[in-house]
């Protein structure tokens, strides 16, 4: 391991806390939300204690500072994913709102009844429900790239779907259940060749992989700060500027306008056109601090560390009798291990693990159709991040033996 784990863990105050029954918390739920380093917490603290003011429209010192901090964060977030310009970085609340923005603005302006949108069977609800809503409203059609037994997308089936000339291909870069890292570059290239626009759900990839939206050639890329060491309440929609410029605004209000008359308005330029009202200022600043933090450590190193932990975890979990793991082998996935324990409900698994201090998630992880596909209502899911250790994996495994004993 090339990460200095001891140093990193010191940055995350929560990793030191105890749970109710006096155990140190073992946080294996970073796929739901990551923990936050002091550097991020303090950046927001500092903002509120020193520079808090509303942005853009103020000329006083605090407003100038707040604006510079807010826009500075946008620059660094843009650089983090290698956007051509920070004008392509739209602040939203989260990945979900980013996808809805595309569905409300781009899709409602560009899709008509009968137009095809291609999704995958492994999508998070956030990349399903907005399209269900549009289907009900507009009569678009939805098709799904199938997922194989071992958790991979069926690219042959995808190529067949492309023959039907979809208008949009929207897919997750990394599954939050299977961990599968999809070949985004290839999927996008094929989509473009078929004339489709592409939207990448990057909620799980931006935190864990080095992302280059220009190398991927993604048209839209959506992600959330809270999964990548940043605060809640802020996410990003990246979009190619030509697309964003042609899109109608989404939410109306202050800041997104250039001019307002009593009965009409003119929209502002990018990125402000899509940011209505007082934005999540402190949160944008916290997000900026988060990408600084990740950059300092290095996304490559983080990915490598997660790979080592994941490989070890899969190995150890497989040893346990009655464990069924989902998703591909460690070389094709990120730091997620979803599993069921024969005859024991995942909620009970998670609850009993919790009593051992081990925090895993149980449920459908907002991917109900995927679970249905695998014929199960829910899984338990352990997930890893830059601060995860092999020792924590061992505690998970010990906990699972305890679960088996109780329900034995």
């Amino acid at each position, binding site marked *: 391991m090339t990460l200095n784990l001891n140093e990193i863990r010191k940055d995350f105050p929560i990793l030191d806390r105890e749970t109710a029954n006096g155990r140190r918390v073992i946080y294996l739920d970073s796929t739901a939300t990551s923990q936050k380093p002091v550097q991020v917490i303090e950046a927001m603290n500092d903002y509120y204690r020193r520079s808090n003011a509303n942005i853009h429209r103020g000329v006083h010192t605090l407003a100038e500072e707040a604006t510079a901090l807010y826009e500075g964060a946008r620059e660094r977030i843009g650089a983090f994913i290698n956007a051509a310009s920070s004008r392509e970085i739209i602040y939203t609340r989260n990945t979900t709102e980013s996808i809805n923005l595309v569905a409300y603005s781009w899709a409602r302006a560009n899709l008509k009844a009968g137009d095809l949108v291609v999704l995958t069977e492994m999508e998070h609800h956030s990349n399903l429900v907005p399209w269900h809503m549009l289907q009900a409203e507009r009569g678009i059609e939805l098709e799904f790239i199938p997922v194989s037994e071992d958790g991979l997308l069926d690219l042959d089936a995808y190529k067949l779907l492309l023959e039907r000339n979809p208008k949009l291909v929207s897919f997750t870069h990394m599954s939050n259940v299977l961990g599968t890292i999809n070949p985004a570059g290839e999927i996008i290239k094929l989509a473009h060749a078929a004339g489709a626009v592409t939207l990448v759900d990057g909620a799980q990839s931006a935190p864990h992989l080095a992302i280059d939206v220009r190398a991927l050639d993604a048209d839209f890329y959506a992600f959330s700060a809270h999964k990548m060491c940043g605060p809640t309440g802020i996410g990003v929609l990246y979009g190619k500027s030509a697309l964003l410029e042609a899109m109608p605004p989404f939410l109306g209000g202050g800041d997104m306008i250039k001019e307002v008359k009593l009965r009409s308005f003119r929209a502002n330029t990018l990125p402000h056109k899509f940011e209505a009202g007082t934005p999540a200022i402190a949160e944008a600043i916290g997000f900026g601090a988060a990408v600084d933090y990740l950059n300092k450590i290095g996304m490559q190193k983080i990915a490598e560390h997660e790979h080592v932990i994941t490989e070890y975890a899969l190995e150890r979990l497989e040893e346990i009798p009655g464990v069924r793991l989902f998703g591909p082998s460690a070389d094709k996935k990120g730091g997620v291990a979803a599993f069921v324990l024969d005859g024991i*409900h*995942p*909620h*009970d698994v998670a*609850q*009993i693990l919790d009593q051992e201090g081990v925090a895993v998630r149980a*449920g459908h992880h907002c991917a109900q159709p995927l*679970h249905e596909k695998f014929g199960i*209502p829910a899984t338990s899911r352990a997930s890893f991040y830059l601060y995860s250790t092999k020792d924590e994996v061992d505690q998970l495994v010990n906990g699972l033996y305890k679960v088996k004993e109780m329900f034995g």
Partner: protein
Amino acid sequence: MDDLYREVIIEHYKNPSYRGKLDPHDISFADNNPLCGDHIQIDLRVNAEGIVTEAMFDGHGCAISQASADLLMEEIIGKSLDSVKKMNKQDILDLLGIDLGPVRLKCALLSLKVLKAGVYGLGEAGDDLVE
């Protein structure tokens, strides 16, 4: 044994007395726990005086949701629909004999929500039914 998994819960979960379906039935309703996909269906037979004479549940879910459904069936047989309507969160917690955080509470209350939505003839089982 850990508090949350008192033996009674594991026992009712492993060996439920009221699992199954009633056909015919007078009232039947089913719903999911949106948080985990757990599913409960409840069938009732009710006599002319509005007394529950038979009750069964079916579905899948965690020990807490299934045990509380089993305990709930046991509790309501012989009761009037009016008194079923009056049951709330506390009644379930009393049956289980444990304290629960907000998330597990949803598991525990799913069966009561489904039951009351069925009794009231509602289309959906809302949280407000068990507050």
